[in-house]
């Protein structure tokens, strides 16, 4: 005989479920409060953000560790941490990075482990935007699951203000990674070192890369005497590496209309400049805009200055280039430029230095030995009644390494960064095919120069130092990912003829004002003002001449 079925009443169910929720909540809260180390980290978050604004931090008193070279000091530091018990032997630091930098870091993990007795593990993400997603999730959840992260310098303001990036100033002083004019032979090239690693006067990152955009062109085609004659008769001046964006347009038009065929039989286009919804603004547009003397925000009141004449002209230049660019430029991701150029389907392009590594690699390129490099094209601007050629190269999304505030072993994480970016180890790491590019002075000189000449070509090394000298940083203030997302979509809209250049810029300005208001106009203004000195002096002079700043 079976027992009659007993039903749980709604009340009983609610009692059980409610009890479970309350029990779990109380248990969770007690467990959370009972974790001393994590609580310390958690409760200091808001203070950390405030610390950023303190400029009078006393200099650290810990003397630098002995070691002839940057990497030696990093290894000695890691060993000392293990010996002192601050870090257990065999401890593991977790690195969050993208697949593109696998080849730059992973081959060195075994060596680091052999030297220090500590390990590095990776969490590899496929797409660059995913890094920001994970980083901000960690900033909110504070799990400590990730110790060190490679991020775009564009996101620096966001990850610092969110409390994720640790202030590394004391580690810099303790272990001396050799940044700045005191180390002219080894330093990370200025002004790169400062603008990629500093925020409001403190060091929050280690430089991993030099992403200054360079003009890359098909030397064999631009030096072809037949094409030179045809070009001169069509445009009235010599075919040469373009100095201005107007010349870029002419050269792109000329080669597109020649209907040349790439090795695989597809059409060769005159140009390939990023104009897609993901990259248009960070890269091509910003370079043209600044070379025209444009300034993103007013240094007086943080008003968006994007819809000034310079902004509209820069957008017009891009829209005019569209018919002469490879169609992928409007819709594909960044890697497509590398692929198409290396397949011989574009004559002129502007990209990160790693493009040359791809174009020089016989396994990925059909144009080995046919590329030349030059400083990004500029614009003719009138200053004080005199016309000058203003050239400025942007440094979009330069990779930098940060250490998480929630890491169990932040010092060890920093030391790994110092080691892998040191003159000796970094030379090996950066010269490999991957997304990290040459950033230390010594790598332009013997004994390293030969390695880098092979990776990039001797001509590129000659040009690149000049590019860095003319470089300017990404927008690196709080909310930059949002500002740039709105700008880049509007630039793309103008390129696909969904909007006029003026409407695109007016709409961007309209979109930017509420962002500034939401994030605090005064704080944003302070951050923007601290960025202005990072622009090249000739750009600042033009801003002064135009009355944009005093």
């Amino acid at each position, binding site marked *: 005989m079976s027992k009659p079925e007993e039903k749980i009443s709604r009340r009983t169910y609610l009692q059980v479920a409610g009890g479970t929720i309350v029990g779990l909540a109380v248990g969770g809260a007690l467990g959370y409060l009972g974790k001393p180390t994590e609580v310390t980290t958690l409760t200091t978050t808001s203070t950390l953000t405030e610390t950023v604004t303190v400029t009078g931090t006393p200099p650290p008193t810990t003397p630098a560790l002995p070691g002839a070279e940057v990497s030696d000091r990093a290894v000695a530091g890691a060993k000392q941490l293990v010996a002192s018990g601050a870090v257990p032997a065999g401890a593991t630091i977790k690195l969050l990075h993208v697949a593109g930098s696998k080849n730059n870091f992973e081959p060195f993990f075994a060596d680091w482990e052999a030297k220090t007795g500590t390990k590095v593990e990776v969490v590899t993400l496929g797409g660059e935007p995913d890094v920001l997603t994970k980083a901000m999730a960690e900033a909110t959840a504070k799990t400590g699951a990730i110790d060190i992260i490679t991020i775009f310098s564009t996101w620096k303001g966001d990850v610092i203000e969110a409390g994720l990036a640790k202030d590394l100033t004391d580690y810099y002083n303790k272990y001396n990674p050799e940044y700045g004019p005191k180390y002219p032979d080894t330093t990370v090239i200025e002004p790169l070192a400062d603008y990629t690693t500093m925020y409001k006067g403190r060091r929050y990152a280690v430089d991993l890369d030099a992403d200054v955009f360079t003009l890359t062109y098909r030397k064999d085609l631009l030096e072809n005497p037949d094409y030179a004659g045809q070009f001169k008769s069509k445009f009235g001046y010599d075919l040469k590496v373009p100095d201005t964006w107007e010349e870029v347009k002419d050269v792109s038009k000329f080669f597109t209309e020649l209907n040349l065929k790439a090795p695989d039989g597809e059409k060769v286009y005159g140009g390939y400049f990023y104009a897609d*919804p993901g990259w248009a603004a960070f890269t091509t547009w910003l370079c043209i805009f600044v070379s025209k003397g444009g300034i993103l925000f007013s240094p007086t009141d943080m008003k968006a200055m994007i819809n000034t004449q310079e902004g509209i002209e820069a957008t017009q230049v891009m829209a005019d280039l569209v018919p002469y660019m490879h*169609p*992928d430029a409007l819709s594909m991701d960044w890697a497509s430029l590398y692929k198409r150029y290396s397949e011989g389907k574009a004559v002129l392009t502007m990209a990160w230095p790693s493009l040359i590594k791809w174009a020089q690699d016989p396994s990925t390129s059909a144009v080995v030995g046919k590329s030349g490099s030059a400083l990004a094209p500029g614009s003719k601007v009138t200053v004080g009644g005199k016309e000058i050629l203003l050239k400025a190269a942007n440094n979009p999304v330069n990779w930098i390494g940060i250490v998480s505030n929630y890491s169990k072993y932040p010092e060890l994480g920093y030391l790994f960064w110092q080691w892998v970016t040191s003159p000796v180890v970094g030379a090996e790491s950066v010269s490999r095919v991957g997304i990290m590019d040459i950033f230390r002075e010594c790598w332009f000189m013997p004994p390293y120069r030969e390695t880098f000449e092979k990776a990039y070509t001797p001509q590129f090394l000659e040009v690149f130092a000049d590019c860095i000298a003319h470089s300017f940083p990404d927008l690196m203030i709080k909310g930059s990912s949002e500002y740039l997302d709105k700008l880049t979509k*509007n630039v793309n809209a103008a390129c696909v003829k969904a909007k006029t250049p003026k409407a695109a810029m007016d709409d961007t300005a309209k979109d930017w004002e509420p962002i500034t208001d939401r994030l605090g106009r005064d704080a944003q203004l302070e951050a923007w003002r601290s960025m202005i000195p990072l622009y090249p002096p000739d750009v600042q002079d033009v801003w002064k001449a135009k009355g944009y700043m005093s």
Partner: protein
Amino acid sequence: MKRIDRLSQWMGKTESFKKLSTLPLNFVLNFVLIVPFAIMIFLSFTRWEPLSGYDWWHASIAGVPRFMEAFGDARLLWALIRTTIFVAAVVPVEFLLGLGIALLFLGDFRGKKAFTSVVMYPMMMPWVVVGLGFYLMFQYYGPVNLLLLKPVFGEGGMIDWFTNTVLAFFAVMIADIWQWTPLMFLIIYAGLAAVPSRLIEAAQVLGASSARIVRTVRLPLIKPLLVVALIIRGLEAFKVFDIVYIMTRGGPGVNSTEVVSLYVYNLSIVYHNTSYACAVSLLIMVAIALVTRLAIRPLEAKRE
């Protein structure tokens, strides 16, 4: 010993056993669903974002302005309109195609089992793979242009799909239809196959044509199943994210293919505007719940 006796006695009661056996489910629900959901509700009443410089549990209540903001948000409105167009376009097409294929598969033919597996494959593929595949297929130098359009219309007939706001959305729809028609097929085929054969035979004896049998016998019998299939697919289509994110990222231009899920993603992940994203999510959830309620009403009325 006494304690063990008491425990086994307590376990012996059906009610106690039920409580104990639902404990793991409660645990999972509380932590995986209810607690985050409660946090989401809390955040939707605040003005917190990760860049605020303080932790979310320190955020003060700002009241309902976040919800009011959503009502005046033109971008949200357009995302809703686009999502509705997307649902209204893909679900009927998937339904009709699924129905057509199911009717074809009702009869016996050689290799039916193998063909059934082939028809099901798209549904088994991850959304990301489908998005990426169609993204590459619709590129200017992709197979759609080179294999379908160029041989017929020449080079001039090749289309730059992702630079045209309408065509880009159309490409996304095609990807969705390709992937989810098999689900409709599966549900409809299962229903049609379950219709008692005696009813079909009776209709045949009475001289009904095949089309009439489908219209007046088969489909009315599986009507509740069809409504459920449309609701499930409609809800899923409303949540579309992956293929839009991969194929267009909301572009070309300014959000021309941005759907609601992508907008919420942009708000929370790209713009870090977490509390507003929570408010928008809640509003959308309530709206979907209301629509679903209306959609299942006819079924309930019939049952009563």
